């Protein structure tokens, strides 16, 4: 038996080995040109995030300094809620940017459960959302410390607990959502809950509008209750713990911190339940039981797509089946609807009359559609990632790559069409039906933006592929080159789209926007067709990289 000291030494050795492994993987990755490109892209992406992080840091520090200086520490909560939302929602909203490597490969080694838990948390800390959230909290800490140095030690303890809470909660959400989406029954329950959630919002909308028209004591009462409820939630507890101590109420402040720490431990326990199952070798795949009597296999005809080659239809069918069996991917694809909900009824709705969408509700539909295009990033810009070793089949078969890519793009287009229809329905409920001019201009905008994104996505799928498992959630890295390039293309398309809409609004005639978009769509479609035509040559030229990356164990 190993003594406690030996176990501790062994654990430290293992943690050092994992850190060293990550470092060696990074260094060895630089041996290839692709690895070097990845590094450059990573530096640029990090700089972009750092810039945003610095902005957040400066704003958080300035506002916190002002609030504490003006003896208004109770309003610090207004800073903590946005940080909390960003930390928790950004990784789900923008999964392409999530940088959270899968640690389950380490299970083959004699790793103690505690080490495994620590490694998972450490990996989570390097996620951009965690890094930026931490920077924001550091800004709050600095602002408080400058305004009132005597408060800095306490603020440090409270904000560190809050940061730990966010880190643990993010990991817990990923772990449990992955668990729920892995099995059909829980997936169906989640689906029903989502529909009920949507329906309930339809009822809340008219209710809040009624209250808005006729201020009533009930509304005030509801606002008071909401204020009390937020006070017992983590951002509220954090703000309260600092504010109470700032006002000399040490016991109340300590109680809030104790509550926050208890919540962190409770959420940590939920994470422990999941990670411990993973540590014991849990497999969430749903293999059906062996039938007592062999089932009769009915003849199963593949799908037919009129006007397309059989290989295109076969790829389309395969992609749709993959998506239908990937809970995490389906969740990502319905995110535009969540975003509409957040804008309509989330925290921003308290600033109802000042937000962009409430001043210009006609932009809700194009905004939702633009976001729908953004959430397709993982699929469009890494379209071979989910195929893994199957990519060899494409190379060994006589099908042309342009047909394979076209089949994949048809899937992307189908999803985009479905998301667009859903967004239209959702916008109609939340903001009223979009005017025909705005609807048509948006569709024309899609005709321009979608082919452009597909073109860039097809190229990056071959030039910077990254193997991904459709069954896991938030545990995979995207290629940094892809992240950077997709960000660039999307900034350009969304920027052009916004400019064209502004021109239309300026002249009070959105048909101008439609005409401009249709003109631009001719260019983007020509580009798409040209690149698609070259796909066979590009795929042959890049076959070694593609196969080596995607067939990796």
């Amino acid at each position, binding site marked *: 038996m190993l003594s406690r000291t030996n176990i501790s030494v062994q654990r430290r050795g293992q943690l050092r080995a994992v850190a060293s492994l990550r470092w060696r993987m990074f260094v060895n990755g630089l041996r290839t040109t692709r690895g070097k490109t990845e590094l450059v892209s990573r530096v640029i992406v990090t700089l972009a995030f750092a810039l945003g992080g610095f902005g957040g840091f400066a704003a958080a520090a300035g506002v916190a300094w002002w609030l504490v200086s003006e003896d208004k520490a109770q309003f610090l909560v207004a800073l903590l809620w946005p940080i909390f939302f960003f930390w928790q929602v950004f990784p789900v909203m923008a999964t392409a940017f999530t940088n959270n490597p899968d640690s389950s490969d380490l299970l083959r080694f004699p790793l103690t459960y505690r080490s495994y838990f620590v490694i998972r948390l450490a990996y989570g800390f390097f996620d951009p959302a965690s890094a930026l959230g931490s920077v924001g909290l550091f800004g709050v800490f600095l602002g408080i410390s400058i305004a009132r140095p005597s408060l800095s030690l306490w603020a440090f303890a409270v904000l560190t607990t809050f940061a730990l809470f966010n880190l643990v909660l993010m990991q817990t959400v990923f772990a449990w959502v992955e668990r729920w989406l892995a099995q059909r029954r829980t997936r169906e329950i989640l689906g029903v809950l989502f529909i009920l959630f949507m329906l309930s919002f339809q009822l809340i909308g008219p209710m809040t509008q009624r209250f808005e028209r006729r201020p009533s004591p009930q509304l005030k009462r509801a606002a008071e209750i909401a204020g009390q409820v937020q006070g017992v939630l983590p951002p509220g507890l954090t703000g309260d713990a600092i504010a109470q101590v700032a006002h000399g109420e040490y016991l109340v402040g300590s109680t809030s911190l104790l509550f926050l720490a208890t919540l962190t431990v409770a959420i940590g326990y939920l994470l422990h339940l999941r990670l411990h199952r993973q540590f014991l070798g849990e497999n969430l*795949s*749903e*293999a*059906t039981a*062996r*039938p007592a009597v*062999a*089932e009769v*296999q*009915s*003849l*199963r*005809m*593949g799908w*037919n797509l009129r006007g397309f080659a*059989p*290989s295109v*239809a*076969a*790829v389309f*069918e*395969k992609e749709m*089946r*993959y998506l239908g*069996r*990937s809970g995490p991917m389906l969740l990502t694809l319905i995110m535009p609807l969540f975003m509409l909900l957040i804008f309509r009824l989330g925290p921003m709705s308290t600033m109802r009359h000042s937000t962009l969408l409430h001043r210009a509700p006609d932009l809700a539909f194009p905004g939702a559609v633009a976001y729908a295009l953004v959430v397709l990033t993982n699929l469009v810009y890494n379209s071979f990632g*989910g*195929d*893994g*070793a*199957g*990519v*060899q*089949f*494409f*190379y*060994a*078969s*006589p*099908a*042309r790559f342009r047909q394979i890519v076209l089949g994949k793009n048809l899937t992307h287009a189908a999803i985009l069409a479905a998301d667009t229809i859903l967004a239209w329905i959702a916008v109609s409920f939340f903001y009223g039906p979009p005017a025909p001019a705005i609807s048509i201009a948006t569709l024309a905008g899609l005709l321009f933006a979608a082919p452009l994104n597909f073109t860039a996505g097809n190229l990056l799928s071959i030039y910077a592929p990254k193997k991904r498992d*459709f*069954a896991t959630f938030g545990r995979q890295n995207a290629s940094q080159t892809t992240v950077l390039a997709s960000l660039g293309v999307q900034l350009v398309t969304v920027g052009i789209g916004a400019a064209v809409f502004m021109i239309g609004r300026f002249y009070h005639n959105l048909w101008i926007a439609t005409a401009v978009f249709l003109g631009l769509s001719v260019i983007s479609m020509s580009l798409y067709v040209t690149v698609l035509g070259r796909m066979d040559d590009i795929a*042959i030229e890049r*076959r*070694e990289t593609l*196969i080596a990356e995607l*067939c990796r164990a």
Partner: protein
Amino acid sequence: MDSAHTISTEGLTRRFGELVAVDNVNLRVAPGQFFGFLGPNGAGKSTTIKMLTGLLAPSSGRIEILGLDLVAHPVEVKRQIGVVPEGMALFGRLTGAEFLSFAGRMYGLDRETAAKRAAELLEFMQLAGEPKKLVTDYSHGMQKKLALAAAVIHGPKVLFLDEPFEGVDAIAAGTLKSMLQGMITRGATVFLTSHVLEIVERLCSHVAIIHQGKLVAQGSLEELRAGVEAQAPAATGDGATSGEKLTLEQIFLRIVGGTRRTEQELSWLG
């Protein structure tokens, strides 16, 4: 190049930086042959098979399959060959029937033919009993059988198999062997790599051995045996005794110059 051969290569070479993984290989495989391609680990077997099937570009040299230049006519060649590469090239989140139907259509079969052949193959491979099971949930042996089924669904004239018997149990291996024998009987050519020399000896009519990227022997088993015996008639510590026919393993060891370590060198091992 010889058009009488199903597979022929001339000066086939593949370099990875400074390493010459396959060095000036000239292969000749005649129609209807069951051809075993052998070599120690890292000898260049998988690299060669990848080049022969269009999964990897040669650095130099020519490849002809069924009389067609692979580089000039890749699609025409791929229509007539079947491949089970290293890693099997499966799509894990499809069911067996969906995958085979997909494979058939990618090889140009119409929907009905693809569906019928998929059902027949699943039945033959004893994979039809669990139609809703995803490929990712198949055992290793089941995946090998499915990969082979996908490689033959279009009735190829040449079949390339990279380690088809690796990790396969005796029952599944029997099914695979009977299918491959059936194909040979009907005139197809099978080219396989394997580490299991007993299986190669039993199945293959012709063998080539690659060592450190170079083709060091090629021919029928008898030709190889005669060649080895002519060069080194005396026993060389590989268990062969005079008068007995050399096994493929003994031929292989003599050609590649391998020796087994018999002494216990890793004394710290249990």
